[in-house]
Protein backbone atom coordinates (compact mmCIF):
# COMPACT_ATOMS: atom_id res chain seq x y z
CA UNK A 1 0.00 0.00 0.00
CA UNK A 2 1.12 3.49 -0.77
CA UNK A 3 1.07 4.65 2.81
CA UNK A 4 3.26 1.84 4.14
CA UNK A 5 6.73 3.17 3.97
CA UNK A 6 9.35 1.21 5.88
CA UNK A 7 11.22 -1.07 3.50
CA UNK A 8 14.46 -1.47 5.48
CA UNK A 9 16.02 -4.89 5.83
CA UNK A 10 15.25 -6.18 2.36
CA UNK A 11 18.13 -7.89 0.61
CA UNK A 12 17.03 -7.39 -3.01
CA UNK A 13 16.85 -3.65 -3.44
CA UNK A 14 15.82 -2.53 -6.93
CA UNK A 15 17.96 0.13 -8.61
CA UNK A 16 17.26 3.62 -7.27
CA UNK A 17 14.33 5.34 -8.90
CA UNK A 18 12.75 2.18 -10.27
CA UNK A 19 10.31 1.48 -7.45
CA UNK A 20 6.68 2.49 -8.04
CA UNK A 21 3.65 2.57 -5.76
CA UNK A 22 3.13 -1.06 -4.69
CA UNK A 23 -0.27 -2.67 -5.19
CA UNK A 24 -1.62 0.04 -7.48
CA UNK A 25 -2.01 0.19 -11.27
CA UNK A 26 0.33 2.55 -13.05
CA UNK A 27 -0.96 5.67 -14.71
CA UNK A 28 -0.42 4.01 -18.09
CA UNK A 29 -2.45 0.96 -17.01
CA UNK A 30 -5.34 3.18 -15.88
CA UNK A 31 -5.33 5.13 -19.13
CA UNK A 32 -5.04 1.99 -21.28
CA UNK A 33 -8.45 0.85 -19.96
CA UNK A 34 -10.23 4.04 -21.14
CA UNK A 35 -12.85 3.84 -23.91
CA UNK A 36 -11.61 6.74 -26.04
CA UNK A 37 -7.88 6.02 -26.32
CA UNK A 38 -5.23 8.56 -25.42
CA UNK A 39 -2.79 10.04 -27.96
CA UNK A 40 0.88 9.12 -28.12
CA UNK A 41 2.04 12.08 -26.03
CA UNK A 42 -0.02 10.73 -23.13
CA UNK A 43 1.01 7.11 -23.58
CA UNK A 44 4.73 7.45 -23.08
CA UNK A 45 7.16 7.62 -20.18
CA UNK A 46 10.43 9.48 -19.76
CA UNK A 47 11.71 9.12 -16.21
CA UNK A 48 15.36 9.41 -15.33
CA UNK A 49 17.05 8.89 -11.94
CA UNK A 50 19.14 11.97 -11.09
CA UNK A 51 20.71 11.12 -7.75
CA UNK A 52 19.40 11.32 -4.20
CA UNK A 53 21.52 14.01 -2.55
CA UNK A 54 19.82 16.72 -0.51
CA UNK A 55 19.01 20.05 -2.20
CA UNK A 56 20.87 22.81 -0.30
CA UNK A 57 18.40 25.34 1.10
CA UNK A 58 20.41 28.55 0.86
CA UNK A 59 18.81 29.07 -2.55
CA UNK A 60 15.45 29.68 -0.88
CA UNK A 61 16.51 31.99 1.92
CA UNK A 62 19.58 33.95 0.80
CA UNK A 63 18.85 37.36 -0.78
CA UNK A 64 22.22 37.25 -2.55
CA UNK A 65 21.13 34.06 -4.28
CA UNK A 66 18.00 35.79 -5.53
CA UNK A 67 20.07 38.69 -6.88
CA UNK A 68 22.32 36.22 -8.69
CA UNK A 69 19.26 34.59 -10.24
CA UNK A 70 18.27 37.94 -11.73
CA UNK A 71 21.75 38.35 -13.20
CA UNK A 72 21.96 34.84 -14.64
CA UNK A 73 18.91 32.60 -14.80
CA UNK A 74 16.28 35.21 -15.64
CA UNK A 75 18.45 36.86 -18.29
CA UNK A 76 19.06 33.62 -20.16
CA UNK A 77 15.82 31.69 -20.17
CA UNK A 78 12.71 31.68 -22.34
CA UNK A 79 9.76 33.12 -20.46
CA UNK A 80 6.06 33.27 -21.22
CA UNK A 81 5.38 37.00 -21.46
CA UNK A 82 1.77 37.12 -22.67
CA UNK A 83 -0.74 35.37 -24.89
CA UNK A 84 -1.09 36.51 -28.48
CA UNK A 85 -4.73 37.31 -27.73
CA UNK A 86 -3.55 39.99 -25.29
CA UNK A 87 -2.20 41.99 -28.25
CA UNK A 88 -4.44 41.18 -31.22
CA UNK A 89 -4.05 44.44 -33.19
CA UNK A 90 -0.99 46.21 -34.60
CA UNK A 91 0.20 48.66 -31.97
CA UNK A 92 -1.25 46.64 -29.08
CA UNK A 93 1.22 46.15 -26.28
CA UNK A 94 1.52 44.26 -22.98
CA UNK A 95 4.14 45.20 -20.41
CA UNK A 96 5.94 42.14 -19.01
CA UNK A 97 8.21 42.52 -15.99
CA UNK A 98 10.61 40.06 -14.45
CA UNK A 99 12.47 41.41 -11.43
CA UNK A 100 13.99 44.76 -12.41
CA UNK A 101 13.60 44.06 -16.12
CA UNK A 102 10.62 45.30 -18.10
CA UNK A 103 9.55 44.80 -21.71
CA UNK A 104 6.87 46.27 -23.92
CA UNK A 105 5.63 43.25 -25.85
CA UNK A 106 4.30 44.89 -29.00
CA UNK A 107 2.56 43.65 -32.12
CA UNK A 108 4.45 45.69 -34.70
CA UNK A 109 2.85 44.05 -37.75
CA UNK A 110 0.03 41.57 -38.20
CA UNK A 111 2.46 38.67 -37.91
CA UNK A 112 5.35 40.20 -36.00
CA UNK A 113 5.79 40.77 -32.27
CA UNK A 114 8.75 42.53 -30.66
CA UNK A 115 9.85 42.89 -27.03
CA UNK A 116 11.24 46.39 -26.49
CA UNK A 117 13.26 47.11 -23.37
CA UNK A 118 10.89 49.40 -21.49
CA UNK A 119 13.10 52.44 -20.95
CA UNK A 120 13.56 55.74 -22.76
CA UNK A 121 17.03 56.04 -24.32
CA UNK A 122 17.24 59.65 -23.16
CA UNK A 123 17.15 59.57 -19.34
CA UNK A 124 15.71 56.15 -18.76
CA UNK A 125 12.04 56.70 -17.92
CA UNK A 126 9.82 53.69 -18.49
CA UNK A 127 7.88 54.28 -21.69
CA UNK A 128 4.88 52.42 -20.32
CA UNK A 129 3.99 51.67 -16.70
CA UNK A 130 4.52 48.12 -15.49
CA UNK A 131 1.53 45.82 -15.50
CA UNK A 132 -0.30 47.70 -18.24
CA UNK A 133 -1.72 46.97 -21.67
CA UNK A 134 -2.91 49.31 -24.39
CA UNK A 135 -2.44 50.39 -27.96
CA UNK A 136 0.12 52.86 -29.23
CA UNK A 137 0.69 54.61 -32.54
CA UNK A 138 4.05 55.61 -31.11
CA UNK A 139 5.85 55.23 -27.78
CA UNK A 140 6.25 58.75 -26.42
CA UNK A 141 8.18 59.27 -23.22
CA UNK A 142 6.09 61.10 -20.63
CA UNK A 143 9.14 63.04 -19.36
CA UNK A 144 10.57 64.99 -22.36
CA UNK A 145 8.59 63.50 -25.22
CA UNK A 146 11.25 61.51 -27.03
CA UNK A 147 9.39 59.23 -29.37
CA UNK A 148 9.71 55.79 -30.95
CA UNK A 149 7.68 54.06 -33.63
CA UNK A 150 5.93 50.88 -32.51
CA UNK A 151 8.60 48.82 -34.30
CA UNK A 152 11.19 50.40 -31.98
CA UNK A 153 12.84 52.71 -34.50
CA UNK A 154 13.54 56.21 -33.23
CA UNK A 155 10.93 58.68 -34.39
CA UNK A 156 11.80 62.04 -32.89
CA UNK A 157 13.99 63.84 -30.38
CA UNK A 158 12.50 66.88 -28.68
CA UNK A 159 14.80 69.84 -29.48
CA UNK A 160 16.91 67.76 -31.77
CA UNK A 161 19.24 70.78 -32.25
CA UNK A 162 20.58 70.15 -28.74
CA UNK A 163 21.48 66.52 -29.46
CA UNK A 164 23.82 66.55 -32.48
CA UNK A 165 25.46 63.50 -30.89
CA UNK A 166 22.24 61.47 -31.15
CA UNK A 167 22.10 59.48 -34.36
CA UNK A 168 18.49 58.33 -34.73
CA UNK A 169 19.67 55.18 -36.50
CA UNK A 170 21.55 54.18 -33.37
CA UNK A 171 18.66 54.97 -31.06
CA UNK A 172 16.39 52.06 -31.88
CA UNK A 173 14.90 50.56 -28.71
CA UNK A 174 16.90 47.47 -27.70
CA UNK A 175 14.92 44.26 -27.97
CA UNK A 176 14.76 40.88 -26.33
CA UNK A 177 14.23 37.89 -28.57
CA UNK A 178 10.66 36.81 -29.23
CA UNK A 179 9.25 33.45 -30.27
CA UNK A 180 5.66 32.33 -30.47
CA UNK A 181 4.29 28.90 -29.72
CA UNK A 182 0.73 27.68 -29.25
CA UNK A 183 -0.67 31.15 -28.68
CA UNK A 184 2.03 32.03 -26.14
CA UNK A 185 4.57 34.80 -26.67
CA UNK A 186 7.95 33.85 -25.20
CA UNK A 187 10.87 36.22 -24.73
CA UNK A 188 14.55 35.75 -23.92
CA UNK A 189 17.06 38.48 -23.08
CA UNK A 190 19.99 36.33 -24.15
CA UNK A 191 20.81 36.95 -27.81
CA UNK A 192 23.00 33.81 -27.77
CA UNK A 193 20.37 31.52 -26.25
CA UNK A 194 19.19 28.47 -28.19
CA UNK A 195 15.95 28.79 -30.15
CA UNK A 196 12.77 28.03 -28.23
CA UNK A 197 12.47 24.75 -30.16
CA UNK A 198 15.99 23.69 -29.14
CA UNK A 199 15.35 24.86 -25.59
CA UNK A 200 12.24 22.68 -25.30
CA UNK A 201 13.68 19.72 -27.19
CA UNK A 202 11.89 17.77 -29.93
CA UNK A 203 9.73 15.54 -27.74
CA UNK A 204 8.34 18.23 -25.45
CA UNK A 205 7.86 20.53 -28.43
CA UNK A 206 5.82 17.84 -30.19
CA UNK A 207 3.64 17.47 -27.09
CA UNK A 208 2.96 21.19 -26.90
CA UNK A 209 2.21 21.43 -30.61
CA UNK A 210 -0.25 18.52 -30.35
CA UNK A 211 -2.41 20.35 -27.79
CA UNK A 212 -3.37 23.25 -30.09
CA UNK A 213 -3.49 25.68 -27.18
CA UNK A 214 -3.53 28.47 -29.77
CA UNK A 215 -7.19 27.51 -30.21
CA UNK A 216 -8.03 28.38 -26.63
CA UNK A 217 -8.65 31.68 -24.92
CA UNK A 218 -8.18 32.99 -21.39
CA UNK A 219 -11.55 32.97 -19.67
CA UNK A 220 -10.31 33.54 -16.10
CA UNK A 221 -7.06 35.11 -14.86
CA UNK A 222 -6.29 35.39 -11.15
CA UNK A 223 -3.09 36.56 -9.47
CA UNK A 224 -1.91 36.61 -5.90
CA UNK A 225 1.37 37.09 -4.06
CA UNK A 226 2.33 33.91 -2.20
CA UNK A 227 4.43 33.84 0.99
CA UNK A 228 7.49 31.88 -0.15
CA UNK A 229 10.48 31.95 -2.46
CA UNK A 230 9.42 31.45 -6.08
CA UNK A 231 11.22 28.11 -6.34
CA UNK A 232 9.45 26.69 -3.29
CA UNK A 233 6.14 27.81 -4.76
CA UNK A 234 6.88 26.16 -8.09
CA UNK A 235 7.97 22.96 -6.39
CA UNK A 236 4.72 22.80 -4.43
CA UNK A 237 2.93 22.26 -7.73
CA UNK A 238 5.32 19.66 -9.13
CA UNK A 239 4.12 16.54 -7.41
CA UNK A 240 0.96 14.76 -6.34
CA UNK A 241 2.79 13.30 -3.35
CA UNK A 242 1.35 16.03 -1.09
CA UNK A 243 -2.28 15.43 -2.07
CA UNK A 244 -3.14 12.90 0.64
CA UNK A 245 -1.97 15.19 3.46
CA UNK A 246 -2.63 18.67 2.03
CA UNK A 247 -5.73 18.06 -0.07
CA UNK A 248 -7.43 15.00 1.49
CA UNK A 249 -10.73 16.04 -0.11
CA UNK A 250 -9.16 15.48 -3.54
CA UNK A 251 -7.47 12.15 -2.81
CA UNK A 252 -10.76 10.26 -2.98
CA UNK A 253 -10.82 10.93 -6.72
CA UNK A 254 -7.12 11.15 -7.58
CA UNK A 255 -4.51 8.52 -8.36
CA UNK A 256 -1.95 10.48 -6.38
CA UNK A 257 0.66 7.95 -5.23
CA UNK A 258 0.56 6.24 -8.63
CA UNK A 259 0.92 9.41 -10.69
CA UNK A 260 3.49 9.39 -13.49
CA UNK A 261 6.54 11.68 -13.63
CA UNK A 262 8.64 12.46 -16.70
CA UNK A 263 11.57 14.68 -17.65
CA UNK A 264 12.51 15.96 -21.11
CA UNK A 265 15.95 17.50 -21.52
CA UNK A 266 16.85 20.34 -19.16
CA UNK A 267 13.80 22.56 -19.45
CA UNK A 268 10.59 20.51 -19.48
CA UNK A 269 9.12 17.99 -17.10
CA UNK A 270 5.62 16.78 -16.33
CA UNK A 271 3.33 14.63 -14.30
CA UNK A 272 0.18 12.84 -15.27
CA UNK A 273 -2.14 12.47 -12.30
CA UNK A 274 -5.22 10.43 -13.06
CA UNK A 275 -8.60 11.60 -11.82
CA UNK A 276 -11.76 9.61 -11.34
CA UNK A 277 -9.83 6.86 -9.57
CA UNK A 278 -9.23 6.26 -5.89
CA UNK A 279 -5.96 7.20 -4.23
CA UNK A 280 -3.90 4.08 -3.41
CA UNK A 281 -3.71 5.50 0.12
CA UNK A 282 -7.47 4.92 0.41
CA UNK A 283 -7.97 1.52 -1.20
CA UNK A 284 -10.80 -0.34 0.50
CA UNK A 285 -12.16 2.78 2.17
CA UNK A 286 -14.36 4.27 -0.56
CA UNK A 287 -16.84 3.25 -3.24
CA UNK A 288 -16.95 4.23 -6.90
CA UNK A 289 -19.89 6.49 -6.00
CA UNK A 290 -17.65 8.31 -3.48
CA UNK A 291 -15.12 8.88 -6.26
CA UNK A 292 -17.77 10.36 -8.50
CA UNK A 293 -19.02 12.62 -5.73
CA UNK A 294 -15.59 14.02 -4.89
CA UNK A 295 -14.32 14.95 -8.35
CA UNK A 296 -12.86 18.47 -8.43
CA UNK A 297 -12.84 20.56 -11.58
CA UNK A 298 -10.80 23.58 -12.52
CA UNK A 299 -13.57 24.62 -14.91
CA UNK A 300 -16.77 23.60 -13.18
CA UNK A 301 -18.39 26.79 -14.47
CA UNK A 302 -18.56 25.13 -17.89
CA UNK A 303 -20.66 22.32 -16.48
CA UNK A 304 -23.30 23.87 -14.31
CA UNK A 305 -24.88 21.42 -11.91
CA UNK A 306 -23.79 17.84 -12.49
CA UNK A 307 -25.89 14.74 -11.91
CA UNK A 308 -23.44 12.42 -10.23
CA UNK A 309 -25.09 9.00 -10.33
CA UNK A 310 -23.51 5.62 -11.05
CA UNK A 311 -25.43 2.69 -12.53
CA UNK A 312 -24.93 -0.65 -14.23
CA UNK A 313 -21.55 -1.44 -12.72
CA UNK A 314 -19.82 1.39 -14.52
CA UNK A 315 -16.75 2.97 -12.93
CA UNK A 316 -16.70 6.59 -11.83
CA UNK A 317 -13.98 7.29 -14.40
CA UNK A 318 -16.07 5.89 -17.27
CA UNK A 319 -19.14 7.84 -16.24
CA UNK A 320 -17.27 11.07 -15.79
CA UNK A 321 -15.54 10.84 -19.16
CA UNK A 322 -18.84 10.26 -20.92
CA UNK A 323 -20.66 12.94 -18.99
CA UNK A 324 -17.95 15.58 -19.25
CA UNK A 325 -17.48 15.12 -22.97
CA UNK A 326 -21.10 15.98 -23.64
CA UNK A 327 -21.34 18.76 -21.10
CA UNK A 328 -18.12 20.51 -22.05
CA UNK A 329 -19.08 20.33 -25.72
CA UNK A 330 -22.40 21.98 -24.99
CA UNK A 331 -21.10 24.56 -22.56
CA UNK A 332 -18.16 25.69 -24.67
CA UNK A 333 -19.65 25.04 -28.13
CA UNK A 334 -16.74 22.83 -29.17
CA UNK A 335 -16.26 19.38 -30.69
CA UNK A 336 -14.59 17.02 -28.20
CA UNK A 337 -15.58 13.73 -29.85
CA UNK A 338 -11.97 12.83 -30.64
CA UNK A 339 -10.58 13.96 -27.31
CA UNK A 340 -9.56 11.00 -25.16
CA UNK A 341 -11.00 10.20 -21.75
CA UNK A 342 -7.61 10.91 -20.26
CA UNK A 343 -7.36 14.38 -21.79
CA UNK A 344 -10.87 15.16 -20.56
CA UNK A 345 -10.31 13.99 -17.00
CA UNK A 346 -6.68 13.84 -15.97
CA UNK A 347 -4.30 16.44 -14.63
CA UNK A 348 -1.38 16.99 -17.01
CA UNK A 349 1.13 19.33 -15.48
CA UNK A 350 4.06 20.44 -17.64
CA UNK A 351 6.77 22.84 -16.51
CA UNK A 352 8.57 24.97 -19.06
CA UNK A 353 11.63 26.15 -17.18
CA UNK A 354 11.90 28.43 -15.36
CA UNK A 355 8.41 29.56 -14.42
CA UNK A 356 5.54 28.40 -16.62
CA UNK A 357 3.21 25.46 -16.09
CA UNK A 358 0.96 24.26 -18.89
CA UNK A 359 -2.03 22.00 -18.22
CA UNK A 360 -3.39 20.81 -21.56
CA UNK A 361 -6.34 18.87 -20.12
CA UNK A 362 -9.98 19.90 -20.42
CA UNK A 363 -11.26 19.60 -16.85
CA UNK A 364 -8.12 21.23 -15.39
CA UNK A 365 -7.19 23.66 -18.18
CA UNK A 366 -4.73 26.00 -16.51
CA UNK A 367 -1.57 27.93 -17.16
CA UNK A 368 0.51 28.94 -14.15
CA UNK A 369 3.16 31.62 -14.09
CA UNK A 370 5.47 32.26 -11.13
CA UNK A 371 7.68 35.31 -10.74
CA UNK A 372 9.87 36.33 -7.83
CA UNK A 373 8.94 39.53 -6.03
CA UNK A 374 11.81 41.78 -7.03
CA UNK A 375 11.95 43.41 -3.60
CA UNK A 376 11.44 40.31 -1.43
CA UNK A 377 12.98 36.94 -2.20
CA UNK A 378 10.50 35.38 0.27
CA UNK A 379 7.50 36.30 -1.90
CA UNK A 380 6.32 35.06 -5.28
CA UNK A 381 3.76 36.48 -7.69
CA UNK A 382 1.57 33.59 -8.77
CA UNK A 383 -0.88 33.75 -11.67
CA UNK A 384 -3.37 31.17 -12.84
CA UNK A 385 -4.99 31.49 -16.25
CA UNK A 386 -7.83 29.14 -17.17
CA UNK A 387 -8.14 28.39 -20.87
CA UNK A 388 -11.24 27.31 -22.75
CA UNK A 389 -11.53 26.17 -26.36
CA UNK A 390 -12.45 28.97 -28.76
CA UNK A 391 -16.14 28.39 -29.68
CA UNK A 392 -16.97 26.58 -32.91
CA UNK A 393 -18.41 29.77 -34.42
CA UNK A 394 -14.86 31.14 -34.47
CA UNK A 395 -15.59 34.22 -32.34
CA UNK A 396 -12.62 34.48 -30.01
CA UNK A 397 -13.74 36.12 -26.74
CA UNK A 398 -11.46 38.82 -25.34
CA UNK A 399 -9.04 37.46 -22.72
CA UNK A 400 -10.24 37.89 -19.15
CA UNK A 401 -9.03 40.87 -17.17
CA UNK A 402 -6.68 39.79 -14.36
CA UNK A 403 -8.23 39.64 -10.90
CA UNK A 404 -5.55 40.71 -8.43
CA UNK A 405 -6.13 39.24 -4.98
CA UNK A 406 -4.60 40.81 -1.90
CA UNK A 407 -2.15 38.70 0.12
CA UNK A 408 -4.77 38.07 2.81
CA UNK A 409 -7.58 37.04 0.47
CA UNK A 410 -8.73 33.51 -0.23
CA UNK A 411 -8.56 32.24 -3.80
CA UNK A 412 -12.24 31.42 -3.37
CA UNK A 413 -12.96 35.17 -3.36
CA UNK A 414 -11.96 35.59 -7.01
CA UNK A 415 -15.14 35.92 -9.08
CA UNK A 416 -15.43 32.92 -11.39
CA UNK A 417 -12.99 30.72 -9.48
CA UNK A 418 -14.27 27.21 -8.83
CA UNK A 419 -14.73 27.01 -5.06
CA UNK A 420 -13.16 23.56 -4.75
CA UNK A 421 -10.16 24.68 -6.76
CA UNK A 422 -9.82 27.85 -4.71
CA UNK A 423 -9.73 25.78 -1.51
CA UNK A 424 -6.92 23.65 -2.98
CA UNK A 425 -4.86 26.77 -3.74
CA UNK A 426 -5.49 28.13 -0.23
CA UNK A 427 -4.26 24.85 1.25
CA UNK A 428 -1.08 25.09 -0.83
CA UNK A 429 -0.58 28.72 0.25
CA UNK A 430 -0.79 27.83 3.93
CA UNK A 431 1.87 25.15 3.52
CA UNK A 432 4.19 27.51 1.67
CA UNK A 433 4.23 30.07 4.46
CA UNK A 434 5.15 27.35 6.94
CA UNK A 435 7.73 25.84 4.61
CA UNK A 436 9.55 29.14 3.99
CA UNK A 437 9.69 29.85 7.71
CA UNK A 438 10.61 26.25 8.52
CA UNK A 439 13.53 26.18 6.13
CA UNK A 440 14.81 29.38 7.72
CA UNK A 441 14.43 27.84 11.18
CA UNK A 442 15.78 24.40 10.41
CA UNK A 443 18.98 22.86 11.74
CA UNK A 444 19.04 20.74 8.56
CA UNK A 445 20.29 22.72 5.56
CA UNK A 446 18.99 20.48 2.81
CA UNK A 447 15.74 19.15 1.35
CA UNK A 448 15.45 15.38 1.06
CA UNK A 449 13.52 14.22 -2.01
CA UNK A 450 11.75 11.06 -3.12
CA UNK A 451 13.42 9.40 -6.08
CA UNK A 452 10.32 9.13 -8.22
CA UNK A 453 7.48 11.33 -7.00
CA UNK A 454 9.75 14.34 -6.48
CA UNK A 455 11.92 13.94 -9.58
CA UNK A 456 10.53 17.15 -11.06
CA UNK A 457 11.81 19.10 -8.06
CA UNK A 458 15.28 17.63 -8.53
CA UNK A 459 15.15 18.16 -12.28
CA UNK A 460 14.11 21.79 -11.79
CA UNK A 461 16.85 22.49 -9.24
CA UNK A 462 19.46 20.80 -11.40
CA UNK A 463 18.66 23.25 -14.18
CA UNK A 464 18.65 26.15 -11.70
CA UNK A 465 22.18 25.07 -10.75
CA UNK A 466 23.24 25.04 -14.38
CA UNK A 467 22.12 28.65 -14.90
CA UNK A 468 23.65 29.77 -11.62
CA UNK A 469 26.94 28.16 -12.59
CA UNK A 470 26.89 25.73 -9.72
CA UNK A 471 27.78 22.08 -9.75
CA UNK A 472 24.78 19.84 -9.20
Amino acid at each position, binding site marked *: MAGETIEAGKNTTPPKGETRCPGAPTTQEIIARDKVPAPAWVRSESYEFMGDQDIPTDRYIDPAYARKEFDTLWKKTWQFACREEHIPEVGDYYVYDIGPYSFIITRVAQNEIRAHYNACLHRGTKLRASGTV*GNAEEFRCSFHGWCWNVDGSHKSTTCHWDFPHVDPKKFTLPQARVERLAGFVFINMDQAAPSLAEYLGPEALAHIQAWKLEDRYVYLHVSKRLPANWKLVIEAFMEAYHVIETHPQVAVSNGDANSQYDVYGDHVDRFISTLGVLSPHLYGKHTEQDILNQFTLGDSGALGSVQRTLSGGATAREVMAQMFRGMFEKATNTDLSKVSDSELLDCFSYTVFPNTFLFPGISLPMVYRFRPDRFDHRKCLYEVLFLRPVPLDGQRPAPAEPIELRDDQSFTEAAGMDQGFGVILDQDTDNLRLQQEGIEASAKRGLTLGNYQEIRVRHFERTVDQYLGQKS
Partner: protein
Amino acid sequence: MADSFHRVLSAAEVPPGTKKAVQVGDRCILICNSNQRLYAISNICTHAEKPLERGRMSATWIACPTHGARFDLATGKALNPPAVKPIATYEVRVVDEWIEVLIKEVAT
Protein backbone atom coordinates in the same frame (compact mmCIF):
# COMPACT_ATOMS: atom_id res chain seq x y z
CA MET B 1 -29.55 76.11 -15.08
CA ALA B 2 -30.91 72.70 -14.13
CA ASP B 3 -29.18 69.37 -14.77
CA SER B 4 -30.34 68.05 -18.11
CA PHE B 5 -29.85 65.23 -20.59
CA HIS B 6 -28.34 66.25 -23.89
CA ARG B 7 -28.98 64.27 -27.07
CA VAL B 8 -25.53 63.64 -28.62
CA LEU B 9 -25.60 60.80 -31.17
CA SER B 10 -27.93 58.23 -32.66
CA ALA B 11 -27.34 54.83 -31.07
CA ALA B 12 -26.42 53.38 -34.45
CA GLU B 13 -23.41 55.68 -34.63
CA VAL B 14 -21.65 53.81 -31.79
CA PRO B 15 -21.83 50.08 -32.54
CA PRO B 16 -20.51 47.52 -30.01
CA GLY B 17 -16.76 47.77 -29.45
CA THR B 18 -16.49 51.34 -30.77
CA LYS B 19 -16.34 54.85 -29.35
CA LYS B 20 -17.03 58.35 -30.63
CA ALA B 21 -16.17 61.79 -29.31
CA VAL B 22 -18.78 64.54 -29.07
CA GLN B 23 -18.72 68.14 -27.91
CA VAL B 24 -21.35 69.29 -25.39
CA GLY B 25 -20.82 72.94 -24.60
CA ASP B 26 -17.24 73.18 -23.45
CA ARG B 27 -17.01 69.49 -22.60
CA CYS B 28 -15.42 66.92 -24.90
CA ILE B 29 -17.16 63.64 -24.11
CA LEU B 30 -16.35 60.16 -25.34
CA ILE B 31 -19.25 57.77 -25.86
CA CYS B 32 -18.03 54.17 -25.49
CA ASN B 33 -19.95 51.02 -26.37
CA SER B 34 -18.19 48.25 -24.49
CA ASN B 35 -19.26 44.91 -23.09
CA GLN B 36 -22.93 45.50 -24.05
CA ARG B 37 -23.07 48.79 -22.23
CA LEU B 38 -22.77 52.49 -23.08
CA TYR B 39 -20.42 54.73 -21.15
CA ALA B 40 -19.91 58.49 -21.35
CA ILE B 41 -16.53 59.71 -20.10
CA SER B 42 -14.36 62.76 -20.48
CA ASN B 43 -12.30 62.44 -23.64
CA ILE B 44 -9.33 64.20 -22.04
CA CYS B 45 -6.65 62.27 -20.15
CA THR B 46 -5.98 63.84 -16.74
CA HIS B 47 -2.25 63.21 -17.09
CA ALA B 48 -1.22 65.34 -20.07
CA GLU B 49 -4.61 66.44 -21.38
CA LYS B 50 -4.38 64.35 -24.54
CA PRO B 51 -7.51 62.90 -26.16
CA LEU B 52 -8.46 59.33 -25.28
CA GLU B 53 -10.58 58.65 -28.35
CA ARG B 54 -7.90 56.70 -30.26
CA GLY B 55 -7.01 54.60 -27.21
CA ARG B 56 -7.53 50.89 -26.75
CA MET B 57 -10.77 49.99 -24.98
CA SER B 58 -11.47 46.77 -23.09
CA ALA B 59 -14.60 45.60 -21.35
CA THR B 60 -13.77 47.78 -18.35
CA TRP B 61 -11.12 50.40 -19.22
CA ILE B 62 -9.72 52.73 -21.85
CA ALA B 63 -5.99 53.34 -22.29
CA CYS B 64 -4.60 56.72 -23.28
CA PRO B 65 -2.72 56.20 -26.55
CA THR B 66 -0.14 58.89 -25.76
CA HIS B 67 1.47 57.71 -22.50
CA GLY B 68 -0.56 54.66 -21.54
CA ALA B 69 -2.62 55.78 -18.52
CA ARG B 70 -5.79 53.70 -18.15
CA PHE B 71 -9.15 54.72 -16.75
CA ASP B 72 -12.10 52.69 -15.52
CA LEU B 73 -15.00 53.21 -17.93
CA ALA B 74 -17.64 53.04 -15.20
CA THR B 75 -16.03 55.14 -12.47
CA GLY B 76 -13.36 57.17 -14.29
CA LYS B 77 -10.74 56.05 -11.78
CA ALA B 78 -7.11 56.22 -12.94
CA LEU B 79 -5.84 52.63 -12.96
CA ASN B 80 -2.13 53.16 -13.57
CA PRO B 81 0.60 55.77 -13.99
CA PRO B 82 1.26 58.24 -15.34
CA ALA B 83 -2.28 59.40 -14.46
CA VAL B 84 -3.41 59.84 -10.87
CA LYS B 85 -6.60 61.88 -11.08
CA PRO B 86 -9.84 60.35 -12.38
CA ILE B 87 -11.61 61.46 -15.53
CA ALA B 88 -15.19 62.71 -15.38
CA THR B 89 -17.97 60.23 -16.12
CA TYR B 90 -21.51 61.06 -17.17
CA GLU B 91 -24.81 59.30 -16.81
CA VAL B 92 -25.92 58.05 -20.20
CA ARG B 93 -29.22 56.69 -21.56
CA VAL B 94 -30.86 55.81 -24.86
CA VAL B 95 -34.19 57.44 -25.69
CA ASP B 96 -35.89 56.81 -29.04
CA GLU B 97 -32.64 55.42 -30.49
CA TRP B 98 -30.74 58.52 -29.37
CA ILE B 99 -27.88 58.53 -26.91
CA GLU B 100 -28.37 61.15 -24.23
CA VAL B 101 -25.82 62.34 -21.68
CA LEU B 102 -26.62 63.99 -18.37
CA ILE B 103 -24.77 67.27 -17.87
CA LYS B 104 -24.83 68.57 -14.33
CA GLU B 105 -24.60 72.30 -14.13
CA VAL B 106 -22.18 73.57 -11.53
CA ALA B 107 -23.52 76.36 -9.34
CA THR B 108 -21.54 79.57 -9.72
